[in-house]
């Protein structure tokens, strides 16, 4: 057949010229600072697993989380929230009189009260303006799920507040709910949002069809490639469908906020958040209070995983502070965590591909339908990641299309959860790739190796939604995927798997490749400040938000590597909007890559002054000096001066006194992907469908791993969440949309005994755009287990499980077919 005009697969001289032009536009080289690339033997700090900054206070129970601050406030009031117990309808009346008359009740607020803003906003903790619709109110009259907040109480203690809630009676006018997201866009489906219910609408919004957003992008010509495949015997088309459920963050520390008006007449919050600066701005807008009059302090946080990339409790607390003029604490219950906080989006994902006989991917066409629940925080951006994170694993595929619809339903609110759409996408892509390999009669690793990303690739897929096709390409400057596969394959025993003795038990292995990003390209900011004490130690302030992963430790190691001192010499202050420089917050795998680079630049700024003072003291040119081992040494004479001498001289030496300080901001258009390979070894009993994981191996390329033990911890914890999505995570509802999963006892969070043996492999590469060659790691390992397990089960017993969680019943049913 003749090729259609403008065939993207045509290999012409014009193509070669374009390639040269692209090499110039997207060079492989990147100009790094001189100190950025160090052989392992030259590194003084970053490659050590130095003790976690907060380890001792955590181990002794002295680390203070938000609720632990309660004892600082003798007049603290305890808040509770009255929540809707219908899935869809209107609150016609709330009788609060009995509650208000109770002893110990200080305030009951409803949407009628002046302290409750009559404004639309979003809880999504994102940059301004949020790429999320403003579709919610602090307290709702139009309720859209069982759990929507409709009133709040502040009382002398939690028990009194609880009693007050039970004394309030609510009259509803019920509406028919949308409970199946596959039917949300049907023409006759009930409508959740009326005109005027939403501001800041997003791309492709169509609220008459309950659609928050539709996003789409294409490179090459997908339809033409599929048409071509119909006429060619050597090209094959595959289409597969995948389904993923709600997943809970299971945040150890429930969402908790303490707020109060301080003696300077400003509003201060001690709050468990990943986004202190976004929260300050969003409170300012919502309550019309100047940014300068709000302070958000982050203490130790009992983890976030995206669930605290949100402003959920803070507005209710502020309204109650305004009403009572008392300090107020609001701590979510575990039941609220499982019903009224945030979750991973359930999705249905379809993938079609064209592949040639010799295993070359010609086209991929991905469609995702995402259920964002009652409101849309992070709805569009999470759906974007379904395609833009896993598809670039195969960047030489020339024809790629990606479309997603994000719909509202009368179910709990989905939002950011570690991985942020990428796990749903990886389940589809990496299981699909496996199916194709088997159909071609190829080993799944061999097939992947023909197509997977390599150093030097020019990836146009990550920017597929960007619009400006040329501006959105990404040169892959670091990629250890091949080594991840090779070492993981060896560790899992891919080639020499022994079968169990029992005839009805079968053992199999599966692989899934993973990609993510390092921060949001072009939409990020980290900043840091460092000052030197007279004894040569340092105090560093960073906006980067450590919610447990150990980024505070990472900051001290980066500063120490620059200055040539011990990490313990750097005292770290993080995340207080009054004190620390601005930072977007800890999300999108940005803290090491973005905030860490800010810390490095700030330390380099300080180093410049340190060298100035050393040059004075040593009477040698600055250019001959290097900082190492806590001293500044001349590379010419070998003479040295200690940081302590420099500290005393700069502060007490005479008329030129100055404090050595450094400061820097960092933002970038770059977002290099870390890469990984997940392996799962499973044994399946064909009589019962029951399966047991024997071992999981994860091999990761995050560039240069800063503090390897902390990096391993991120990988092992990420795999834990991925394991849960694969085997046990899910929320259940009755036919009225009433949640049935109310706590840990009903939810399948894996315990110590549910985890197989795990092996973690770090594959080092050097990412020139990252601090000392580092890329991110936190989200990458949340992507692997569902597809790797589905693939391992196929390898063991030849059946494909395409909906999560994978259960014995599903395997058994598939075996019977």
């Amino acid at each position, binding site marked *: 057949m003749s090729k259609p005009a403008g065939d993207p697969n045509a290999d012409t001289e014009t193509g070669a010229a374009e390639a040269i032009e692209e090499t110039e536009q997207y060079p492989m080289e990147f100009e790094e600072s001189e100190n950025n690339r160090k052989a392992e033997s030259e590194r003084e700090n970053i490659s050590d697993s130095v003790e976690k900054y907060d380890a001792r206070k955590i181990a002794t129970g002295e680390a203070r989380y938000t609720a632990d601050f309660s004892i600082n406030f003798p007049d603290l009031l305890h808040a509770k929230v009255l929540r809707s117990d219908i899935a869809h309808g209107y609150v016609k009346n709330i009788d609060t009189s009995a509650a208000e008359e109770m002893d110990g009740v200080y305030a009951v607020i409803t949407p009628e009260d002046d302290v409750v803003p009559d404004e639309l906003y979003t809880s999504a903790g994102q940059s301004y303006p949020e790429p999320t619709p403003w579709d919610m109110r602090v307290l709702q009259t139009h309720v859209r799920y069982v759990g929507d907040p409709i009133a709040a109480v502040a009382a002398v203690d939690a028990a009194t507040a609880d009693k007050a809630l039970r004394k309030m009676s609510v009259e509803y006018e019920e509406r028919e709910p949308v409970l199946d997201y596959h039917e949300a866009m049907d023409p006759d489906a009930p409508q959740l949002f009326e005109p005027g219910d939403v501001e800041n609408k997003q791309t492709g919004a169509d609220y008459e069809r309950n659609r928050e957003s539709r996003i789409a992008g294409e490179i090459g010509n997908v339809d033409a490639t599929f048409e071509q495949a119909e006429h060619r015997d050597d090209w094959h088309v595959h289409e597969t469908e995948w389904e993923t459920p709600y997943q809970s963050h299971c945040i150890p520390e429930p969402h908790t906020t303490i707020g109060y008006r301080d003696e300077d007449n400003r509003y201060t919050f001690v709050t468990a958040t990943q986004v202190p600066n976004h929260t300050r701005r969003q409170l300012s807008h919502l309550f019309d209070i100047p940014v300068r009059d709000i302070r958000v302090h982050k203490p130790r946080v009992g983890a976030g995983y995206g669930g605290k990339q949100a402003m959920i409790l803070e507005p209710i607390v502020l309204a109650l502070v305004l009403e009572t003029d008392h300090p107020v604490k609001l701590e979510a219950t575990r039941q609220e965590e499982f019903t009224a906080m945030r979750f991973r989006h359930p999705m249905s994902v379809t993938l079609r591909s064209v592949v040639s006989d010799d295993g070359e991917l010609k086209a991929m066409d991905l469609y995702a339908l995402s259920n964002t629940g009652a409101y849309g925080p992070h709805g569009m951006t999470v759906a974007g990641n379904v395609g833009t994170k896993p598809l670039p694993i195969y960047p030489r595929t020339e024809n790629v299309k990606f479309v997603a619809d994000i719909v509202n339903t009368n179910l709990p609110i989905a939002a950011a959860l570690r991985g942020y759409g990428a796990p749903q996408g990886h389940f589809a892509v990496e299981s699909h790739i496996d199916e194709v390999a088997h159909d071609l009669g190829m080993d799944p690793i061999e097939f992947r190796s023909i197509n997977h990303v390599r150093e030097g690739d020019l990836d146009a897929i990550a920017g597929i939604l960007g619009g400006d096709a040329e501006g959105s390409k990404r040169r892959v400057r670091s990629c250890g995927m091949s080594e991840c596969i090779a070492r993981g394959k060896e560790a899992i025993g891919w080639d020499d798997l022994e079968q169990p003795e029992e005839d009805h038990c079968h053992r199999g292995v599966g692989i899934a490749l993973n990609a993510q990003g390092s921060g949001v390209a072009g939409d990020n900011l980290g900043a840091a400040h460092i000052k030197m004490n007279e004894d040569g130690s340092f105090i560093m302030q960073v906006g980067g938000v450590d919610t447990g992963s150990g980024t505070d430790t990472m900051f001290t190691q980066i500063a120490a590597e620059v200055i040539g001192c011990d990490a313990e010499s750097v005292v770290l202050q993080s995340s207080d909007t009054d004190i620390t420089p601005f930072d977007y917050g800890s999300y999108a795998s940005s803290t090491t890559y973005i905030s860490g680079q800010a810390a490095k630049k700030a330390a380099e700024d300080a180093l410049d002054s340190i060298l100035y003072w050393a040059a004075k003291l040593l009477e040698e040119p600055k250019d001959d000096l290097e900082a190492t081992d806590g001293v500044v040494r001349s590379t010419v004479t070998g003479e040295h001066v200690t940081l302590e001498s420099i500290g005393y001289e700069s502060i007490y030496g005479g008329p030129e006194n100055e404090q050595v300080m450094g400061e820097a901001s960092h933002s970038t258009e770059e977002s290099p992907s870390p890469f990984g390979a997940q392996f799962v070894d499973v044994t399946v009993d064909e009589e019962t469908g029951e399966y047991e994981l024997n071992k999981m191996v994860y091999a990761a390329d995050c560039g240069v791993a800063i503090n390897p033990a902390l990096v391993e911890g991120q990988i092992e914890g990420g795999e834990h969440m991925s394991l849960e999505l694969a085997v046990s995570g899910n929320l259940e509802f009755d036919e009225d949309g009433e949640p049935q999963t109310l706590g840990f006892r009903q939810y399948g*969070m894996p315990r110590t005994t549910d985890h197989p043996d795990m092996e973690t492999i770090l594959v080092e590469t050097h990412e020139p755009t990252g601090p000392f060659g580092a890329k991110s790691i936190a989200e990458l390992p949340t992507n692997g287990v569902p597809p790797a397990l589905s693939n391992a089960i196929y390898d063991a017993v030849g059946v494909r499980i395409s909906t999560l969680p994978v259960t014995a019943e599903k395997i058994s049913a598939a075996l019977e077919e």
Partner: protein
Amino acid sequence: MNVEFTLNGKRETFDVEKSDLLLDVLRRNGYTGSKRGCDTGACGFCTVLVDGEPENSCVTPVTKIEGSEVETIEGLGTQDDLHPVQQAFVNRTSLQCGFCIPGMIMSAKALLEDNPDPTKQEVREGLEDNLCRCTGYKKIVEAVMDASELMNGEVAADGGWVDEPTRPDACGIECSTPGETNE
């Protein structure tokens, strides 16, 4: 009403309501190391030892422990002089957000007092009621194995590990899998 019990080795009297749970009383009196995670005894973040046994203090009526011996995380080591279990958690980087750690350490202490030389599988079973969301439990189980060696005097408590301990892992599988052994 008053309740009297021994807290971290010291006889204490607390003014309580009859309906108070042990966790409420502890936290109200400044013992905030025990964390509130679920209020239903399902997560283990509030684990303390009552007469040597791990208990979820969030579901333990305070009146029930009159005269008992209660140990909380505050009764273990200090930052400058850590208990071996705490030391092992610090050395192994077995903690991230830390919210589950006080309860986890108390359960691990009870486990090791009961069984000073456990297998990895026994550690897993002993910590089954303590949830952790950050670590995948790998470094936690390893830390408890380290702590066992520390407490048995097999490793010097100098904070550093000469050799990384390696042990074959228990697979826990019902179908026997060649190459895997249960310890």
